[in-house]
Structures are given as C-alpha cells and as structure tokens.
C-alpha cells in the first residue's frame, strides 16, 4: 500500500465518519448503502484476491441475510437485532458451506463460478414462489429496530443512531476480514490461490482452505444483507439477482484486484457514478460499462494498482529485477 492510496483511503474513511454532518440526508442515505455494499464487495474479494475463487452468485448470501433480517423485523419477532445479525452470519456461513461442499469437490475454476450463478438464480426463483418472502415484490415497510444494551438503548429510528450503527457494524466486519486475511489463514489462502499444488506439497489441504474461505465469505455477505433490511426498509429479489452479484466484481476490477482495499475504492466510484447520473435514466449503466472498459483497457490493475505502479515508476525499477 503506497502513500497516495493510504491517504485516499483515510480521506474516504473520514468522509464516511462525518457524512451526517457534511452532506444532506439524501447523500447520507447513499453513503449508508455504499458502506453495506463495501462489506459485501470485500466479502467477495476475500474469496477472489485471497483464495482465488470467483463467485458469480454471491448475491444469494447477501439475500439470505437481507430476507431473514427483513422477515424478522417485518413480522415482529422479538429478537435483539445484534442477535439477528449473528444468526444471519451463521445462516450465510451454513449456506456457503453447503454450496462449497457440493461444488468445490469437483471444480474450483469456471465451472465453480457458473454453478454459483445457477444456484443463486435458483434462490431468486424460490423467493418468487414464496408468500412469506413476498414473491417478486419482496418485503417492504420494514420497521427499524430499537436495541437495548442494558446501559443504553440504540434506536435506529433516529437518523444519527441509524447511520452510526451501520458504520459501526461495517467497521467491525471490515476489521475482522482484514485481520483474517493478514493472518496465517490469509497467507494459506494466498498460497492456494497462487499455486494450489505447491501449497499441497507443504501440507496445505487446498480444498479445505477453499471451503473455509467460501464459508467465511458467505457469512460476511449475509451480514451486509442483514444491515440492508433496516437501512433500506425494503428488500426485493433484485438484491439476490445476478446483477447484484456482479456489483462486487465491478467494484474489485475498478478498485484493483489483488488488494484488500480495492473494492472500497470501487464501490465509492460506482456509487458516485450512480449519484451524478441519477437524473438520466440508463446513463449510469452506460457510464459504469464505459468506465469498466476503460479500466480493463487502460489500467488493468484498477485504481489502486495504477497508483502503486505510478509510485514504483517514480522510485525506479523494482529491486531484484527480472532475470
């Protein structure tokens, strides 16, 4: 991580931290969405940049969290929302574990990706049949919970509390993911991504590492989904659909694959694009497409990768040099 990128990330963090005091409520609402999407995109990138797995159906795990949280809140189950978040994490993990168990035995390449897509679209279809989950309309008018923590209560109906609760949970999730990938398990995941055979010859069971990574990733995607329910107050099958599965992929490509923080930059970029083009229908899709093409053609390492390269060029060639 070079200095320019670090400063940029710190500025982004400051922007999120003070957003309610800096911008209008409409933008704060978008910032909240962006934070949730960042957690979702990071959960995907944990899989991609560390374990080397490409999931095309990650929105399914987001959907598990979103729908379970939405149903609990909407149908008035009296469960502490922190517990709901944890339950969603467990459900996301279990769902991902089962998928990994079935799919990863046979394939970890493109077949894996396509199967994740197929399974996630199956979830969309199932939701369409479900009364409980509101068919194609989804679940709307989701009430925001009030959480009692003994010493104090957090009422998500109050805008500030609502925003900072989302920020807090996102920070915890991002922190946990960061610690995981920087630790020895993250290194084992990287070993499997770079050369799974080499990894096996030092005793690493590549299959288990992949299943583990997928499970963890599913858990965090579900937590992101669960946050969406009270924040957006509506959950529809769109959040489970393949277009939403593509969101973290776009964000990672835009921000820079191979970097933990890549998707953060990517999501902020995509959200900004959406915001500035909101009045022209269809324009945002065109611009998102165009910017992706531009990134792939001009800066294939994404924004962070390009920043790193610029920094390197200034410092001269890499030490060691090519043989």
């Amino acid at each position, binding site marked *: 991580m070079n200095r320019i990128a670090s400063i940029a990330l710190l500025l982004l963090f400051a922007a999120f931290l003070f957003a309610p005091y800096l911008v209008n409520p409409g933008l704060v609402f978008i910032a909240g969405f962006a934070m949730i999407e960042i957690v979702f995109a990071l959960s995907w990138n944990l899989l991609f940049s560390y374990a080397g797995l490409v999931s095309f159906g990650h929105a399914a795990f987001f959907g598990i969290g979103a729908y379970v949280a939405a149903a609990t809140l909407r149908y008035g189950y009296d469960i502490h929302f922190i517990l709901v978040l944890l339950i969603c994490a467990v459900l996301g993990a279990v769902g991902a574990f089962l998928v990994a168990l079935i799919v990863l035995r046979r394939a970890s390449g493109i077949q894996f990706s396509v199967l994740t897509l197929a399974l996630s679209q199956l979830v969309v279809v199932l939701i369409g049949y479900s009364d409980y989950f509101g068919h194609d309309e989804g679940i709307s008018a989701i009430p925001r919970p009030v959480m009692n923590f003994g010493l104090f209560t957090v009422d998500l109906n109050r805008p500030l509390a609502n925003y900072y609760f989302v920020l807090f949970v996102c920070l915890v999730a991002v922190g946990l993911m960061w610690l995981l990938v920087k*630790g020895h398990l993250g*290194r084992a995941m*990287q*070993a499997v991504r770079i050369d799974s*055979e*080499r990894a*096996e010859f030092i*005793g690493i069971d590549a299959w288990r590492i992949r299943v583990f990574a997928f499970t963890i990733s599913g858990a965090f995607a579900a937590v992101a989904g669960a946050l969406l329910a009270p924040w957006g107050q509506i959950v529809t099958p769109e959040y489970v659909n393949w277009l939403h599965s593509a969101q973290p992929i776009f964000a990672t490509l835009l921000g820079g694959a191979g970097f933990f923080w890549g998707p953060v930059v990517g999501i902020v970029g995509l959200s900004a694009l959406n915001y500035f083009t909101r009045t022209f229908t269809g324009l945002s899709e065109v611009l998102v497409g165009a910017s992706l093409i531009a990134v792939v053609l001009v800066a294939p390492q994404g924004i962070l990768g390009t920043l790193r390269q610029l920094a390197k060029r200034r410092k001269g060639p890499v030490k*060691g040099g*090519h043989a």
Partner: protein
Amino acid sequence: MILDAQGIEMSYGALKVLHGVSLQVSESETFAIIGPNGAGKSTLFKVLTGERMTSAGTVRYRGEDLTKLPAFRRARIGFGRTFQVARIFGEVDLMTNVVISIEARLRYSGQSPGAWWRWTPAADVRLEAEEILERFGFPRSRWSDDAQYLSHGDRKRLEFCIALATRPDILMLDEPMAGMSPSDRKEMTKLLMRLKAETGITIVMTEHDMDIIFEMADRLMVLSYGEVIAIGDPEKVRDDPTVRKVYLGQGYQHA
C-alpha cells in the same frame, strides 16, 4: 526402510510411462535416479509424492501404506519436494514464501502458528524464516522482494527454503541444480551435504549432472523407458555395460 515402492505403473492416457518400477530407500540415504530425457523420472516423483496415483503397485513410508494418500497428507507425515521447474509463491515476497511453509507445518503438526487475528507472523516463525533464508544465501535486503522477479537459480534456492521449512524427513528433489551456474551448483551441493550431516535427512533426487551424483549419492538407480535397468552402488552402476550403452555412454563424457 523409509520409502518402499513396489511395482509402480503409470500412464498418461494411452502412453504407458512406468512399467513396474520398484525401489527401496533407507533412512538417511541419498538415493539418486538417473536416466535419459523422457525416461519417467519426474513421473516417478509424481507417484511417490502423491501428485498422481499409481494404477498398480504400492508406496510405503516407514511401513505405512500411502498408495492412495493425497499429496498434502504425505507432506504432513514427512515428504518434502521440489519441482523440476521451481514452483514458488510468486506474488508474495521471499519472507512470506517461507513463512507460509513454516505456518503450514505448525498448523498441521498440532502446534499453533498463532492466533488467527494476528496480522503479522509470530516472532518465532519470523525468526525461523530469517534463518532459513540467510542460510540459503538470501541477504536481509532481499527478503521483501517479490518472489516472481527472482532469477532461475534463486527460484530453485527459494523452493528449497519452502520445502525445508516443513522439516521433512524425506526430501524429493527433481533436478535440483538444473539451470544453476556452476558456482551455484557447488554451493548448493555443499549446503545439501551439510544439511544431511546435521539432520540425517533422506534425499531422493534426479540429476543430469553426473559429478553431483557421484559426489552425493549413496545409491543410484537408472531408469530407461520406464524400467529400472540398474540399481546399486554408484561406481558399480557406472561400470555396468547396459547403463553405459543407454545413458552414460553419451551423457557422461560431455559432462
């Protein structure tokens, strides 16, 4: 007997590469396998290390049958290996390459590589990695270099570090010195001999450089078209007329 392979057969599709190869390696021995290009040496290595499964025959390790055991399990019970074309973790730095290997050893030997949330390697892991890197001639200034930019010989040396960091009992080296400069070869041979003297590690290696073979090997096996044509004391094998005809006749004089 640390390694006992009997009647190993192996085919790539219709091409049968190994025709009932048997070999036995005793503890702390250096066992060399030679043979012309395409004889099946690397294929035999694949079968012994679990990269490929035999279609017939058995592989035993200290009496335990591991014919059907996958590679990672063999690695955990004491196999270390290097590849003919060195395989390292290219996108991370030299230090991380070795750390990954040490942490794997700790994780799978009932010890602990540290808590999952520790974002830097544990101090003792780092120290051990530093020792290994230093020993194999990587100065401190290069530890944070990306491994993918290493020269061919350096890749080979780093691969040694990775393989040794798991503290194997048997080290399978497929042409460990191929592509190294003559001075690097000398250095490497010395390092291996010292390693043997210190740890009593068993080495199974293939090598085209006969000088290295005669310097290091306790026993020698000659493979030709997937069959063992001679096995035993290196001097005797060298003087065997069949061996001279298929291999040494052309190769050794050039070397």
